């Protein structure tokens, strides 16, 4: 059982931007996708979600080609956490999370009392139960990111895919969100996230994939894979390593 890409070519309609990607998101593990801007991270992620058609190879969801899995069934297996955005309408945080129940609420998607309970409990699980009745347009970016995570959890999925979950967050919120991501895997979910920050991959991921110009430059354990040379090649700049006495490392750009 896994969400996997096999010799995958991906891109937008009419333009292939990457090929030869093989990776595997397994339950209970965290896979970080690292790469420079414009390297195809988002496109690869959307192809993995089945939102864009594969240009070659295939994406498999628990062994089945994802194109053969109906969208509502996909939504019961894979939760998607987009980058925090302010939508057009001021739904409350709870209403937003209840939408995560759509694929489990029957033909019309009418939420039941139980759906509301599940949604409320997901908000509490992420420590934002007090935001339930606040319009999600009027909470902070970090809180909004957590609301989207709660919505993905309300889908009760096996896998969660996150698009740069800390991109617009301040320092404290980055830590908050990343700790929650790590705890999802401890609860048995397969987690895939894209990031700009090698330190996040180093600290929170079981595996890291380096995406450079549409192909996987490397895939493996962060501790052995991430060092000055690989990161320097990936981003095309010098990288400095800071090492703590206990052996833990962090990278500084430039």
């Amino acid at each position: 059982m896994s969400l996997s890409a096999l010799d995958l070519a991906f891109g937008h309609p009419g333009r292939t931007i990457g090929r030869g990607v093989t990776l595997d998101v397994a339950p209970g593990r965290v896979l970080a996708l690292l790469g420079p801007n414009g390297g195809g991270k988002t496109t690869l992620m959307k192809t993995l979600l089945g939102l864009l058609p594969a240009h070659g190879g295939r994406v498999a969801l628990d062994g089945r080609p994802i194109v053969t899995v109906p969208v509502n069934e996909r939504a019961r297996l894979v939760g998607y956490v987009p980058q925090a955005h302010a939508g057009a309408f001021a739904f409350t945080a709870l209403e937003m999370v209840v939408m995560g129940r759509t694929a489990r609420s029957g033909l019309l998607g009418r939420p039941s009392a139980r759906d509301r309970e599940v949604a409320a409990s997901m908000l509490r699980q992420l420590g934002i139960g007090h935001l339930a009745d606040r319009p999600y347009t009027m909470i902070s970016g970090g809180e909004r990111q957590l609301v989207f995570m709660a919505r993905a959890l309300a889908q009760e999925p096996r896998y969660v895919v996150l698009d740069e979950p800390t991109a617009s967050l301040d320092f404290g919120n980055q830590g908050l969100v990343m700790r929650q991501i790590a705890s999802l895997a401890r609860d048995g979910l397969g987690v895939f996230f894209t990031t700009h920050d090698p330190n996040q991959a180093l600290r929170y991921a079981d595996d890291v994939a380096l995406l450079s110009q549409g192909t996987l430059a490397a895939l493996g354990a962060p501790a052995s894979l991430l060092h000055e040379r690989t990161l320097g090649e990936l981003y095309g700049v010098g990288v400095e390593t800071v090492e703590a006495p206990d052996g833990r490392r962090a990278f500084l750009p430039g």
Partner: protein
Amino acid sequence: MMRGGFGRGLAVAVAVLLGGVALAFTLGRFPVSAADVASILWSRLTGRPSGMPGNVEAVVLSVRGPRVVAAILTGSALAAAGAAFQGLFRNPLVSPDILGASSGAALGAVIGIYFSLGIFGIQSLAFVGGLIAVAAVYTLGSALRAGDTTLALVLTGVVLGSLLGAGVGLVKYLADPYNQLPAMTFWLLGSLSGTDASDLLPLLGPVLAGTIVLLALRWKLNVMSLPDDEAQALGVATGPVRLAVVAAATLVTAASVAAAGVIGWVGLVVPHLARFLVGPDFGRLLPTAAILGGGYLLVIDTLARTLAPVEIPLGILTAVVGTPFFIWLLASSRRSWS
């Protein structure tokens, strides 16, 4: 921002509707007391004679009755379609004619008047014109840009809508200025005067069918108001749902424009009022908007025929009421739309 419960919001909408019905039946050049209206309607339901003078009965049942029903249906239809389109296009400034339903219907109607067709012919052409216009916009818009369907649809709607507007202008230019042009102008400004019982059936069928579809899809509309990727990842097949919403909203809009002419603002203002009452969740918003829209247009129509010695066209009144409301809305809700 105030946001009441669903029960209270719905109660306000129902109260507006019932108040509108009471006003519409009693006010006018021939005032009828509320008690007389009630006993006439009651006798009609039970089949017993009301004991009222025949002319009072005629005013209530034949003159005002059909007009009340038409106003409710038209107002509900435009408000429900407006709310649905605002969700679908993720934009609270969208109104039901965004995809050209009104401009298509307007062109159909003025062509009908130009060829001196009867009222049935004019209304049929208007209805079909609205449907064809939206079908063209939808086909063209989806074919043009595979990626961002909503934006492509809106832009195509704007472009084709202005072409249809030019068509209306051309027909008006060619029309007989003494007989046809006043009729066209009057029709384009919207009115329910002269509505009789035979007008109700062609309005009722499409409005009921379309509104039922929109109400059934109202929970999915919540998800449709999110970016397309997210809606799909939440398990909604966005393509088919979008097509169903557009078809249903177009059906009700084209039918109301065919029956009452072009009435702007209702589909834009009423969803906002409803959102103010019950919040943005379409599960609660759509029924509230539909009920409130019926009451709103009923009140406007009553004003239209009682304010001045001659009837004021509905489109003018809705604009006079709608513009200040909208400016207030822009000023007061800077951060969110609820």
